[in-house]
């Protein structure tokens, strides 16, 4: 019998990687294996022949290729330690001698108790699982893999439909157009040299292209920043008044 690896939610087990043992179908853990041994060998749990059971345990984990599963090895080591303790000469009166197996027996009993609860839960769970509630949504049901029922004609018609629906993509040609801010600045300076006031709408030709509008705007902002002119917009969306920056004239 070989240990089969079950993939878990945490990641699929690698079939070649024997050191990565997660769950074995036969045993839920080292205590489970030990209990099975005790049952198979028909020994008294209160008087476990430790030397024999320890040997059998090691044989089993080797058969199951569990010899590098730490939890099984730990119990194997514990069994060997108890075996060694049993061999030590007993000092003092018999009553004060503490059976080195006592702790192991306590753990086995506790584990066995829990196994009985597992049997109950398994039964109750199966009973519940075999009854459906209304719109009972099981947590993880694989969708049923149904074969695709489709004729060649239907498939071609579907492809044709998709091709017809798909339009030619709209392609915009983006042409980089350099702004001419210095040119606009020179233009504004020239206008303001002729008259003290003007308006944005007057500076722009009626058919001005976007790049010209933006160049003009940047030119005005630049000149305002440098203090060469003042920009005044009395109301939102009103025309922008442009005045030559002349504090004396303003005061007048």
């Amino acid at each position, binding site marked *: 019998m070989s240990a089969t690896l*079950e993939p*878990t*939610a*945490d990641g699929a087990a690698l079939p070649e990687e024997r050191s990565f043992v997660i*769950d074995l179908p036969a045993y*839920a*853990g*080292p*205590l489970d294996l030990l209990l099975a041994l005790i049952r198979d060998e028909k020994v008294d*749990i*209160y008087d476990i022949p430790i030397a024999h059971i320890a040997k059998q345990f090691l044989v089993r984990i080797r058969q199951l290729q569990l010899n590098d599963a730490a*939890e099984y090895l730990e*119990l194997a080591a514990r069994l060997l330690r108890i075996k060694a303790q049993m061999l030590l000469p007993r000092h003092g009166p018999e009553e004060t001698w503490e059976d080195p197996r006592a702790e192991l027996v306590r*753990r*086995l*009993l*506790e*584990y*066995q*108790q*829990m*196994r*009985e*609860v*597992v049997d*109950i*839960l*398994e039964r*109750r*769970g*199966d*009973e*519940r*699982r*075999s*009854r*459906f*509630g*209304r*719109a*009972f*949504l*099981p*947590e*993880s*049901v694989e969708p*049923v893999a149904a074969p695709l029922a489709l004729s060649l004609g239907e498939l071609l018609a579907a492809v044709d439909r998709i091709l017809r629906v798909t339009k030619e993509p709209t392609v915009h040609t983006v042409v980089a157009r350099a702004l001419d801010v210095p040119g606009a600045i020179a233009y504004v300076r020239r206008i303001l040299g002729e008259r003290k006031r003007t308006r944005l709408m007057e500076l722009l030709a009626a058919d001005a292209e976007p790049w010209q509008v933006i160049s003009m705007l940047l030119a005005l902002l630049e000149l305002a920043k440098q203090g060469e002119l003042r920009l005044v917009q009395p109301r939102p969306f009103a025309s922008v008044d442009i005045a030559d920056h002349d504090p004396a004239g303003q005061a007048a």
Partner: protein
Amino acid sequence: MIPLAKLLEAALFASPRPIPTDELAALAPEASKAEVAAALDGLREHYDVDGHGVELVEMAGGWQILTRPEYTEAIERAQLAARPQRLSAASLETLAIIAYRQPIGRGEIEEIRGVSVGSILKSLHERGLIEVVGRAEGLGRPLLYATTPLFLEQFALRHLEELPRADELAIALRPAPQPL
């Protein structure tokens, strides 16, 4: 059937989960608790005696209408519903320990099972079968786990006390009582 039983039946039919008894009672404020209990018993009997394909099951502190097991296979074959997956032996062991020892920390569970249970606790938590109910005092203040109402529901338990008492278990392995 009395009108109260019909009302309860309609509510139970509409719900995909067990309806707690007090919520059923709230449906008919004029009826007493005893009357609601009697109506539920009547409804259950009605399904049992007259031979219906469904039955009324009491679990997790509530009631739910479920199909009878003899029709499970036919329903599954027709792909109308599917049984949820069985829990693994390792998950069941962990659940059993938590059910009896709750609130319990991870270390204690691992000591009883003899294996580490980190990923199992995570998956039980994700399935909503256990929840964190606090932290233990002491080193590292480990998280304490307990079972949820969904646990009772998935194992058709009315309450936790329906499981046998701990001292009723593992009798076969117990030594004969010492004569005094």
